[in-house]
Structure formats: C-alpha cells, structure tokens
C-alpha cells in the first residue's frame, strides 16, 4: 500500500477562528459530527488530502502536523524509535476507529502515524 501522507492537522490556539479563516479563504468544509468533536476538514477538491483542526494546549505552539498512513501503527512507532525518533503520544485507538500515534523525528519535528478504520481505508 505504501505509506502516503494521508492527513494534515492544524494545531490552533483558536480553532474556531482557524476553521473560519480556511472556510472563508478556500471554501473548505468543517465537520464536527464525530466522537471527539474533531474539526474534520474537507477541502472539497478532487485531489490532495483532507485534514483537521485540533486545539493547541496553552503551553504548546500553533503548528501543522502531517500524518503518514501505515498498516501497523505500533510496528512503525517501534521502528521509528530505533531510527532515533521519540514518542510523543503512544498508539491510541480513537473512538471512531482510527488508530494514531505522534512522534518526533530526528530533527525534533512532530508527525503522526495513523491507520484508518477498515471502512475508510483506501480513501485519502
């Protein structure tokens, strides 16, 4: 399947304002009808990838995180650590069925590893 960048996430200090900004700028749609109340962003485009907006904690920074899709999150987290990465958030089973983890690469840049729930696999 390869390991594509399958999702992006904006960590925003003011997520409502960020959502409104991108909706106004690009006409993107934002949906929160999921169990985390996660702002899922649909770019309404034929190409590219969709993303989401998550609240940044007060002690954190606003940033964009990329998520790479894999077939086994735990295995890739382990592999990443052997290559010098650090785990920020160990693998979690999200309420809607996706699985994800967040790690820091060797440059200290955070990125996510994700596995979509079965019904969403193959959809970017």
């Amino acid at each position: 399947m390869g390991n594509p960048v399958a999702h992006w996430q904006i960590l925003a200090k003011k997520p409502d304002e960020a959502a409104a900004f991108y909706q106004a700028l690009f006409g993107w749609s934002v949906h929160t009808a999921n169990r985390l109340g996660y702002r899922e962003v649909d770019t309404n485009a034929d190409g590219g990838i969709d993303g989401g907006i998550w609240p940044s904690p007060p002690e954190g920074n606003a940033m964009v995180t990329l998520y790479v899709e894999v077939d086994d999150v735990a295995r890739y987290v382990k592999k990443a650590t052997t290559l010098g990465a650090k785990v920020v958030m160990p693998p979690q089973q999200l309420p809607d069925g996706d699985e994800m983890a967040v790690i820091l690469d060797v440059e200290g840049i955070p990125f996510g590893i994700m596995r979509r729930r079965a019904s969403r696999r193959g959809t970017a």
Partner: protein
Amino acid sequence: MTGAIDPDILEHSGDMRAFLRETLAARCARNPRYSLRAFARQLGTDHSTLSQILRGRRPLAVRTIARFSEKLRLPDSARDRFIVAERTQRRHAASAPARLERLGRELSTLLSDWRHFAILELTRLDAFTPDSRWIARVLGSTVDDTNVAVQRLLRFGLLQMTSASSWTAISPVVPVSLDGFLEAVAARLPALHAVDGRPQPARGDVRPGDRAETTIAVDSRRVDQAIELMDRCRTDVIRLLTTGDRKDDVYRLSISLVPVTTTKP
C-alpha cells in the same frame, strides 16, 4: 577473525559509541588477549581517546565517526545512521533545558486544571462514554478544553484509548529518565489532591488541612449519608464513596460535597 564486524551488533547498535563498546566486548570475549589498545590501533586513534569515547567522556565528531567507519569498513548506511544518531543526541542534549521547562509547564497545568482528574475518574464509571462531547457535557466544559485535557493525559501516559469503545486510566510508568521521572510524579499526584480552579464557598471553621480537595467517582446513592459523615473524617468519606458497588457520578470533595458534572452521566 577478530577484526570482522558482527552484523548483529551492527544492526542493533543505536549509535557509534554503543557499536564500538559491543564490538570491543565481543572481540575480548573471543580472544582474551585482545585489548583496547589493539582496537584503538585499528581505528587509528590512541587508547586513551578511545577509552574516553567509550565512556561518553568525549564527544564523537562527525568526521571521527566517518573515519572509524572507514577503518572498520562499515557500510555507508551504518555510517550515516550513526552520524544521524550522534546529531540527534547532541540536539536533545542542547534542547534539554527548554524541554524541561515545557514539561514543567505541562506538569503544572496537569495538576492545576481540575478536568484531568475528573476525566480519569469518569473513565471508572459504568456509564462512561469515550466521547469528548459527552465528557464536555458532563463536566460543563467545552469540547476543545476537554480535548486538550484528554491529549495531555495521553501524553503523560495517564490515559490510554485502548479501543474504539474503551478508555483506561492507567498506572504510573516506571521512570527510566528525567522525563519519565517527572511523568511518574505527575501520574501519582492526582491520587493525592487535585487543585480546583473553580471558586469555593467559604466557611469560617475550616482548618488549613481541610483546604485540600479531590475529585472522585462516587456512588451517588450514598451522597446524603456521606454529607452526614464528612465533618467527622474525610478519609472515611472518600472510602465510603469509592467502595460502593458501582460508580455512577463524579463529585469534588472539599468543604462541601458537590458534583463536578453539570448533567447526570
């Protein structure tokens, strides 16, 4: 042959220093007459320098890693991996104060925001629903504030999303580093007291020791009985509430006993 490279050691060594240490140990095990001096000769350095490198007393420059790799005839991939590892270690060492400061801020927030403890206690309820919107509604919080708190709990290893339908408050981790130690401290503190930012009703006869408060999952059928007991002994009250045959609500015990939930879970 003493000078050959053990592919197993090469594969599992995370950095050049570990690789050199294990290679030297393996060679000495195979040939008791093999020495640090002999290894240093092969590497083109002197034994005291090599000794300092092996003990972590001397930094490993990139050019030194390249030279050692060449002398040992390591594959380029291994050389590059060791160079990346060394650079990463240096970066982590250089950024340690900043990371520690940020960890301190996170820890402070973890302890000062009542939601963390309340969320952990909510997971113990039979009625718990792994849904940030439900948690926010029950705690009278916003979904964003709830998600930030949930994420912080996940980062500190205090909470785990174990399946799509189950979140688990988990035991403190065994500390293996400074970060791990602080995380373990953070993990234990909620069991002591959670400081609530919400305004508290004042009462003139409260002793200083009674200012400590905590948030617990309770059997709400016992609340009236608990109120009668709480002036006698706080410990007894907590025991009563937490040993019921079910936990169906979350209350904060301070001067008064009030639910932190705004709606019944």
